[in-house]
């Protein structure tokens, strides 16, 4: 296997110049899609850690689980707060966009790995990624954001915890 890499990028001394040079590494759409792939990857991992912990509640404390998911719906301690609901709905949309970008761009990366001509179509393939992303994201945005126009269906009341009945 040949690795025809360009000469290593020359970094100027100094932390700030180094950061600026690092951000301009090779440049172009390939670099930015790569950087977004990393940022979205880290974002998804942070969410995943929170998500595993909140789903863990389900097995030992149903009331704590319902209390937690009620917050995601904008209800805290049996009281509805609209900014809470808005914040979580928008964050939900952000999460979907993040996962969707990482998924579609990941498929593009795999195509490059197994189809040697792929890298020649860096720009075209990124345009394709963006088209697929928007085609899936716009309807999703409508579905997620539209319910915010009306009040929530019901207020959530969480009962006291009861021991697990096998």
């Amino acid at each position: 296997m040949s690795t025809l890499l360009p000469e290593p990028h020359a970094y100027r001394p100094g932390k700030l110049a180094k950061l600026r040079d690092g951000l301009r590494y090779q440049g172009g759409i390939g670099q930015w899609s790569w950087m977004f792939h990393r940022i979205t990857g880290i974002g998804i991992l942070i969410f995943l850690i929170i998500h595993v912990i909140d789903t863990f509640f389900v097995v030992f404390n149903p009331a704590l689980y319902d209390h937690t998911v009620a917050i995601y719906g904008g209800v805290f301690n049996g009281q509805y707060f609209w900014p809470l609901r808005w914040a979580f709905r928008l964050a939900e949309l952000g999460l979907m966009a993040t996962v969707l970008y990482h998924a579609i761009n990941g498929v593009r990366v795999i195509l490059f790995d197994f189809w040697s001509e792929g890298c020649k179509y860096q720009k075209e393939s990124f345009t394709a990624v963006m088209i697929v992303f928007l085609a899936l994201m716009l309807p999703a945005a409508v579905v997620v954001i539209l319910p915010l126009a009306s009040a929530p269906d019901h207020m959530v009341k969480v009962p006291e915890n009861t021991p697990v009945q096998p």
Partner: protein
Amino acid sequence: MARNRIKPQGGFELTAWYFMRISGLVLVFLALGHLFIMHIANNVENINYAFVAGRWANPRTGWIWRLWDMSMIALAMLHGFNGLRQILDEYVHGAKARVAVHTTLWMVMTTLLLMGSYAIWMFQVDKAYVDQYRALNPAAASASAAR
């Protein structure tokens, strides 16, 4: 091999390289399917304990959801933490610091994977709790009955 693509020559890194691509492709379906079910077909306002119980403890289809969630958490954890390891390896060069980073990542990953697996396999429905919840939230009860 295409220009400018770096593929490891062998050993653990090559296995990890293949794992990232295979798990990534599987996760496209598992994770996007999960997002569709949870955020499009349902939403954060009708997901609750009773909803989770209805999926995992369903006598006919429960095992499918548990298998789905189990595969998803295992692949996502390994994929995510290996990705973070690769990023950190580019910035952390000291031998001691690397050992510390790798140890921390493996410990956190294993803990989360054990927590998730425990929740998925050990889940039992608390029927008394679900009845209490439905009694307190008649609107939620009718909404879940309509599904």
